[in-house]
């Protein structure tokens, strides 16, 4: 269990939030909720609508598509944004592979948080560009 101040300190070190001021970080820390998952728990479920946006504070999770493990996510990584941005159900299961502590933002709130925090949107876009680049490399 972390206090809001501790969460602010933690996310300040994540690339996603690197360009935000302390008051902006404090405001964001209040909008997210903390959620923890035991080893083996499904966080996102492939094909089920209404999911949320998650940032990993501690632990690891696997990205599983149609039962096949595709990637591993760790501290500072985030997931769930693609299905929210596209208005679709997640295309993968996200399964805790170690006890997982996350910050979670409800899907409907993501749009406004991105609009209110352009530096955050830019950093998310950067991360998506890297994922796209890596996917293209993998295909070629």
């Amino acid at each position, binding site marked *: *269990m972390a*206090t*809001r*101040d501790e969460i602010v300190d933690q996310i300040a070190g994540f690339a996603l939030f690197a360009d935000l*001021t302390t*008051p*902006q970080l*404090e*405001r964001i*820390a*209040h*909008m997210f*909720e*903390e*959620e*923890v*998952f*035991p080893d083996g*728990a*499904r966080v996102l*479920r492939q*094909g*089920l*609508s*209404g*999911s*949320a946006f998650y940032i990993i504070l501690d632990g690891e999770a696997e990205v599983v598509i149609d039962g096949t493990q595709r990637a591993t996510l760790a501290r500072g990584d985030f997931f769930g944004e693609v299905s929210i941005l596209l208005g679709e159900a997640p295309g993968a299961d996200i399964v805790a592979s170690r*006890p997982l*502590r996350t910050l*979670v*933002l*409800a*899907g*409907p*709130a993501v749009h406004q948080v991105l609009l209110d925090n352009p530096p955050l949107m830019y950093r998310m876009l950067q991360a998506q560009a890297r994922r796209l680049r890596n996917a293209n490399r993998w295909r070629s």
Partner: protein
Amino acid sequence: MAELSQAGGDRSADPRPFPPGDYPVVVVGSGAGAIQVSYSLRRNGVDHAVLSADPSPGGMFRRWPFFQRLLSWTKPYAPVARDSPAYERYDWNSLLADGPGERAIMPDLMDGTSYFPSRPEMELNLATFVERTGTLIRYDCRWTATRREDGPDGERFVLETTDGEYRAATLVFAVGVAEPYSPPTPGIELAAHYADTRPAETYAGKRVFIMGKQNSGFELATGLLPWARRIVLCSPSPAKLSVNTRSLVGVRARYVQPFEDHVLGGGVSVLDASIGGIVRGEEGSGSPFLVTVRPSDGGEDLAIEIDEVISATGFVTPLLDLPALGVTTFGQARLPAQTAYWESATVPGIFFAGTIGQGSAGLKKHGLPANSGAVHGARYNARVLAAHIARRVGSERPAGPTIAAAGLLDRIIAEIATAPELWHQRAYLAKVISLDPSSGPRDEGIVPLAAFVDAAGDDGAGNAIALTLEADGSGAIYPVLYLRQAGKVEERPIDADALLRFDTPAARSQVAAILVEAGVG
């Protein structure tokens, strides 16, 4: 159930029930959650003890809400008969029972001045339920510590109490989220907590700074409107209003008056700012305190002169030494991390009921939480939990009653149109109908939706349909059918209806098509 140790008379000369000793299950608490779990365990034939530090039933309702009026309504006059299960949709405060005279107790105790019961009415509602159902509780018995030891049937827990030691393999804690929490803000010791708020008239003519913009903060502001000279409500993020989120997330409508006062310039200020600190005002300044705040939008720091500071920053879960035993907690409320069946995610055998059950978040679709933090959600969780524990401690789970194939459509329509569990615990609790071809459709009862979709529920992992009601934050409420076939789960939403009728020809047609898809149409 007289054969169970509820009477406890053969164990001790103490006239109170449940003397120290060995029990299959021990429940801690005497609020709505504990009472509902105990009642439901008894209905499932599970021998157990119930212990409480309090002298009488009621839990938090023995003291709060501070201004003595609940947020949860009971409608004495509803669209359905009071003696039908469907009435529970309109009565958020009565506990669940099977016997006549034990159900829908709340409306009979209300004085008609509001459809929100007063605190004393709610306390009486719970005490009346305890009396009429013969629920036994050992009062004035405080849980003080917990440890593990090896027992004759494996590891078990030892609860140390002011009356002695209790041993059980299964513990259920329903002790509320009731320990005042204040953030580590510099100078916080100068603030009173919500729990220590004085009578409203003692704030007459004062300038009051309230830390926190959730229901408790707005409740205080509402109560102080006729008394305080100025009220400042402050927290870093904007206040959410339930009428905007179209859910129970946010400040409830009956506490919105201070917000209107703020937007109309009447003397209430609602600030989005982090609180830098609280210091004493200079001698002779006429301001006992100075609160420094930093606006979240990056504006200049503000120094606010104030007479009283109240921290309405919530409560934490009083888990005593359970974290040291391995119970993982999370969030500001220090809720225990839980499985879909409200068991500690890290210490098997320890369960949670009542408002603590909100730590089992479920799917939380579209960001909307279940109502587990309120009586009208927790009472259904408790019933499911009791059946789950009954299965764990050895009771054979009977096969669900069969449903004639010809009546399956009618049954589903009836459930999505009226089932109170589905209405109150949306996208959280589901009615499950198994579809084993050899036995035909069977009613498997209510199961946490998260357990169903992960094939980890008491209904098993076979082909089945789960029925829920759901909302997406747009204001629409609609049924969803989940098809579990060959281990894969897919959802099939039914169209929303402006009048919330799901027994219409349109709904029947959609459900019928889904049953065909499931191979039972």
